[in-house]
């Protein structure tokens, strides 16, 4: 398995803020590597270091060469919050970027791959969020790259658009395209990636297959009880398990399926109202929480969680 991408102890600071604090990772051909972390964790800086659009200390190699020395045809990049000419049509945009390369794929073939055949002549500004992003992915595919780099490709688009983009990326992965994708949607990383790197404050706190990460660091299964809970509520419950409140939702760790009933009884006994009970396997979000102590909120903002331990230990 040839190493497509190697980074060793990559460091980058802007003034006195450290954006990258010694990141090392590698990606092999055909692999989908996701980098996950909240805004400001260093995702974009790392992408720029890897594609050579910003200088960084440490060693970075693409296909065995320095990023800036690599033949441009081999990389396809979709930068973060990328907006092309709005008054060009999807076809004109893809054709424009095609014109910048010597050999490229057929424009209409790429438009078909991203599912834009019938909206190819619509101006970019009149396309939906999902269609716009798929147009942008098409501009990164036109030169048939060996490495596709997508910096937060689904940020800011509606769930349906995000869903369609995931399916597109899954299709590309199946064709063996090596993909480096950054995101702050945990679900996206868990679904798309062969391996996930968790970034926090410029450091890579973990790098492994999602299942392994969840198994090693995900912790026990959880029972999420939706309602309006606070400290006092947690103390009132007499149930031997670790509990915590995350934005008003009560989370109880390590509840076996057969004991959900007894938890429900205890809640009734204490007179706590709730709207729903959700039994949940640990997921990447919990891994990130475990390893960094902060969650990766909906908007990707780091969020501290309120933790209180009641009753027995886990």
């Amino acid at each position: 398995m040839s190493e497509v991408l190697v980074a060793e102890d990559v460091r980058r600071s802007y003034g006195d803020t450290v954006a990258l604090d010694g990141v090392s990772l590698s990606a092999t051909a055909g692999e989908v590597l996701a980098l996950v972390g909240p805004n400001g964790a260093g995702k974009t800086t790392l992408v720029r270091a890897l594609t050579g659009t910003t200088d960084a200390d440490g060693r970075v190699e693409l296909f065995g060469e320095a990023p800036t020395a690599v033949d441009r045809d081999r990389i396809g990049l979709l930068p973060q919050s990328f907006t092309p000419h709005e008054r060009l049509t999807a076809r004109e945009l893809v054709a424009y970027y095609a014109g910048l390369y010597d050999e490229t794929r057929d424009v209409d073939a790429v438009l078909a791959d991203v599912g834009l055949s019938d909206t190819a002549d619509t101006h970019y500004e009149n396309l939906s969020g999902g269609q716009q992003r798929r147009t942008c992915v098409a501009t990164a595919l036109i030169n048939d790259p060996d490495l596709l780099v997508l910096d937060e490709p689904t940020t800011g688009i509606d769930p349906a658009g995000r869903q369609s983009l995931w399916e597109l990326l899954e299709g590309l992965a199946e064709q063996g395209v090596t993909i480096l994708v950054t995101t702050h949607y945990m679900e996206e990383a868990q679904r798309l990636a062969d391996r996930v790197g968790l970034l926090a404050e410029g450091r890579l706190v973990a790098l492994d297959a999602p299942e392994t990460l969840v198994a090693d660091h995900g912790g026990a299964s959880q029972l999420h009880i939706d309602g309006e809970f606070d400290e006092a509520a947690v103390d009132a419950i007499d149930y031997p398990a670790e509990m915590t409140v995350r934005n008003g939702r009560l989370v109880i760790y390590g509840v076996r399926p057969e004991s959900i009933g007894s938890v429900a009884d205890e809640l009734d006994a204490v007179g706590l109202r709730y709207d729903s009970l959700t039994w949940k396997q640990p997921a990447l979000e919990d891994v990130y929480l475990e390893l960094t102590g902060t969650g990766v909120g909906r908007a990707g903002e780091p969020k501290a969680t309120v933790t209180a331990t009641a009753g027995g230990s886990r």
Partner: protein
Amino acid sequence: MSRLGRLQAESRAASRAFLRRRTAVFFTFFFPLIIVVIFGVLVQTRPGGGGLFTREPAYYLPGYLAVVVLFTPLSRVGSEVARHRDGNRFEKLATTPLTRPEWLLAQTLVNTVIIGLAGLVLLGLMVVLTGAEIVVSPLLVPFVVLGVVLFCGVGAMLGSLASSQDGVISASNGIALPLLFLSETFVPPELLPAWFPTWLSPLTYFSRGVRSVSTGSGDLVVPLVVLSVCAVVSFGVGAALLPRTD
């Protein structure tokens, strides 16, 4: 494809994007009309010979041309650079074979064509509205082209250095207006204090060159040489300042 192909692709996209911004197109061509009407028709020359426009109409051709050659590149290339930065397009372009000088060259080519046309419109208006007798010679072309290259370079600098798009527009106006009136375009040097160094402004060489062509008298070589040097330097600095990320 190589370089020519890249330039073609960039120029085509740039010109399409420009032509589809109707307001930009309208003002690029309407602006010279307003200037000629105001300065050429409305502002009368007082019988006694005083006042702003005492020289014969043909004297002011460089002034009118300068309006287009100066303002259009500054604002157009400046705002195009700002737009590219907002959309992270330079970061995208940095991973394509297109180099930054090639990008700026393509923008300059498009602007040269646009301004060439606007210049022709201007010439026509001048002759029709102000009755100027102008020696129309192909020698005007190098001066217009060099002027456009020069101010596209400056526009690129403004776009790279200013933080936002409206920062660019105000900066370009802030530079263009004083430069316009201090470079022997509308205001002959004798109306300025003797010590005032109009020779410092590159636009002065544009005015002198165009004037010597259109009036058939005056030195051509020095303005052409100086303007060429300024254009090359400005293009080089402008391209070098273009960002690789945002």
